[in-house]
C-alpha cells in the first residue's frame, strides 16, 4: 500500500503521517458508506409507514407492494384524527409527560445535588434505592401497584399514571443530574457562601444554573421516556380518559378491522412529537443517554 521502500530518506514521522493520512481517508470512505446503509435501514420502516398512510385501503394490500405512482390520500390523516380518539391520546400523553417531567425534576434535582455535593450515609443509601428502582422491571412492581390503585379507585386516571411514571423515571433524572453536578467543583458553593448566600441560595442561584445542560438532558429524557411508556398506561388505564398514544396505536393495530393505511397514519402522527423533540434537543438527549 505505502511506498516506504522508495522513499528511504523519509523520516519516520513523515512516514507515519503519510500512513495515517491514507488510513484516515480510507476510514472516511468506509464511514460514509456505512452511514448511508445504516440511515437507509433506520429510515425505511418510517418511510414505508408514511407511504402506506398515503395509500387507499386497496393499494395497501396489493402484492407486489406499490412503491410509487399511487393516488396520494392525505385524508387518511384527517380520518384517523377525527374518527379515532387519537387527539385525546395525544393530549393525555403530552399532559402526563409534562407533569411527570416537572415532578421528577422538582424532587430529583435536589436529590441529585444532595448526593453529589454532600457525603452522608442516608445519601449513599438513597443512591442504592435509586439504582434498585432502575433495576426492578416495571411489570413486577406494577402487579402490586395495580392492586393498590384499584382499591384506591385510581384506575383509569391520569393522576395514577403520573404517579407511577414519576416513580419509574425520577431515578433516571436523579442519575443524569447527579452526573452533571459531579463535574462541578464544590468551591463554587464555598464562594457563594462567603458572598452571603444561604446553602439553599447557593443551590438554586449558583449550582442549578451552571448545571442547566445536565438538567435539560434529564428533562428531555424523562419527557421522552414518559411519552413513549406503554406498560404502565396499558395496565392502569382502561379507556381514552387516561390512555396515551402508544396504547392507542396498539389498540388500533390489534383490531383486525382497522385498515393498514389508517394504522400507519396514526403511527406517523404518534411519532411526530418524538421527531420534533429530538431535532430540537438532540444535544441534550445524547448527553443524557451517555450519562444515564
Amino acid at each position, binding site marked *: 500500500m505505502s511506498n516506504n521502500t522508495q522513499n528511504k530518506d523519509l523520516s519516520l514521522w513523515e512516514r507515519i503521517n503519510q500512513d495515517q493520512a491514507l488510513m484516515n481517508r480510507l476510514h472516511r470512505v468506509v*464511514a460514509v458508506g456505512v452511514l448511508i446503509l445504516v440511515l437507509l435501514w433506520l429510515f425505511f420502516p418510517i418511510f414505508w409507514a408514511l407511504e402506506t398512510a398515503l395509500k387507499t385501503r386497496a393499494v395497501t394490500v396489493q402484492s407486489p407492494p406499490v412503491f410509487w405512482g399511487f393516488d396520494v390520500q392525505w385524508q387518511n390523516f384527517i380520518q384517523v384524527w377525527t374518527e379515532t380518539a387519537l387527539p385525546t391520546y395525544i393530549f393525555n400523553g403530552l399532559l402526563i409527560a409534562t407533569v411527570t417531567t416537572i415532578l421528577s425534576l422538582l*424532587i*430529583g434535582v*435536589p436529590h441529585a445535588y444532595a448526593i453529589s455535593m454532600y457525603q*452522608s450515609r442516608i445519601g449513599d443509601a438513597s443512591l442504592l434505592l435509586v439504582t434498585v428502582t432502575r433495576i426492578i422491571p416495571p411489570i413486577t412492581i406494577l402487579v402490586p401497584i395495580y392492586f393498590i390503585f384499584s382499591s384506591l379507585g385510581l384506575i383509569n386516571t391520569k393522576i395514577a399514571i403520573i404517579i407511577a411514571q*414519576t416513580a419509574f423515571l425520577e431515578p433516571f433524572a436523579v442519575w443524569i443530574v447527579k452526573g452533571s453536578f459531579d463535574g462541578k467543583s464544590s468551591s463554587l458553593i464555598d464562594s457563594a457562601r462567603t458572598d452571603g448566600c444561604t446553602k439553599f441560595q447557593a443551590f438554586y442561584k449558583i449550582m442549578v444554573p451552571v448545571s442547566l445542560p445536565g438538567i435539560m438532558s434529564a428533562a428531555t429524557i424523562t419527557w421522552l421516556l414518559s411519552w413513549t411508556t406503554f406498560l404502565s398506561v396499558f395496565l392502569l388505564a382502561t379507556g381514552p380518559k387516561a390512555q396515551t398514544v*402508544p396504547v392507542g*396505536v*396498539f389498540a388500533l393495530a390489534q383490531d383486525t378491522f382497522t385498515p393498514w393505511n389508517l394504522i400507519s397514519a396514526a403511527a406517523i402522527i404518534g411519532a411526530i412529537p*418524538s421527531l420534533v423533540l429530538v431535532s430540537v434537543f438532540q444535544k441534550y438527549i445524547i448527553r443524557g443517554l451517555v450519562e444515564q
Partner: protein
Amino acid sequence: MSVNLANWKDSLQSIRTRVSGLSSLSFDKLLLLPSVVFITLIIGGPALFLIYLTLTQDVFSLFLDTRFVGFQNIAAVLTTGDFWLFTGNTLLYTAGVLGIGIPVQLGIALALNTDLPYRRVWQTLLLIPWTIPFVISTVMWKLMFVPEFGVINYLLIESGLIEQQIQWFSGTWTAYFTAIITTVWIMTPLGTTILLAGLDSIPDDLYEAAYLDGAGIWNQFRHVTLPLLRPALTAVLVIQAMLALRGFEIIYTMTGGGPGTATTVIAIDIYQEMIQNGNSHYAAAEGLILVVMILIVLGIIVKGLSSDTDLEVE
C-alpha cells in the same frame, strides 16, 4: 436572672426544633427527603405488598381473605413447566437482541468514529428510531412483515433469497426473528450513541503510540480501543439486557406471544396471569423471580466484562 434567661432561650430553642422537626435535619437531608419519601412510598410500599402477595394465598370463605403460605407460590411457579418455557423464551430473546444488536452497534460506532462532517445532523438522524414509542416502531415493522403483501417478503423474493412467502408469525423461529430484528432496530441508536461517545473519549495519541510500537489495526483495536471502551460497552450491554429481560410491548405487539406460547416471555406471562387469569399471587411470585433473574444476568455481564481489568465499571 441572666442564667434563667439563658435557660429560657435554650428551652425555647429546643421546643422550636422539636415542633418543626425538619429544622433538625441538615440541609442535604432536607433536599433528599421529598425524593426518598416519594420513591419509598410508591416503589417501596408496593414492593412490600408484592412480597406479601407472594407469601399469601386467597381463601374463599364468606369473605375473600388471605392466608400465609410461605414459599408455596414461588414453588408453584418454579414447578410449572410453562414457566421454564417462558424463561427459555426470555433468555433466547435477550440473547438474540444482544447477540445481533451489540456487534451491529459496535460495528457502526467504529465505522463512524472518524471526522465525518455534519456530525450534528447525522447523529440526530441516528437517534430518531429510539425516540419513537416502541409500540409505534413495532407496528411499522409488523406492517413490513405481513406475509401476503409485506415489503420484506417482496424484497427477499425479488433478490432471490427465498422462493416463496415466509409466514413470519406462524413459525417459532421466524416469529422470534421479527421481534428481535425490531428490537435491534429500536436499540441501535441508543447503543451506537453511547459507544460513539466512548470512542470519542479515547485520546488519539494512544493510537499513535500503539502504531509506533508496531501495532496494526487489529492490535490497536484489541489493546487500545477495546479496553478503553469497556465502560461504555458494559453500559450498553447492561441497559439492553435489562430492557430485553423485562421486554413486553415489542413482543406483545409483534407476535402477541405466539404462535401459541412460542414467544411468550416472562413479562407477558406475568401480565396474563395477573389480568387475564386474576392469579395475582402467582404473578407476584413470578415478578420476584424475574427480578432475581435480572440480577443474575446483570451480575454475569458486569463480572464477565470487568475481569482482568482495573477499570472502574459503572
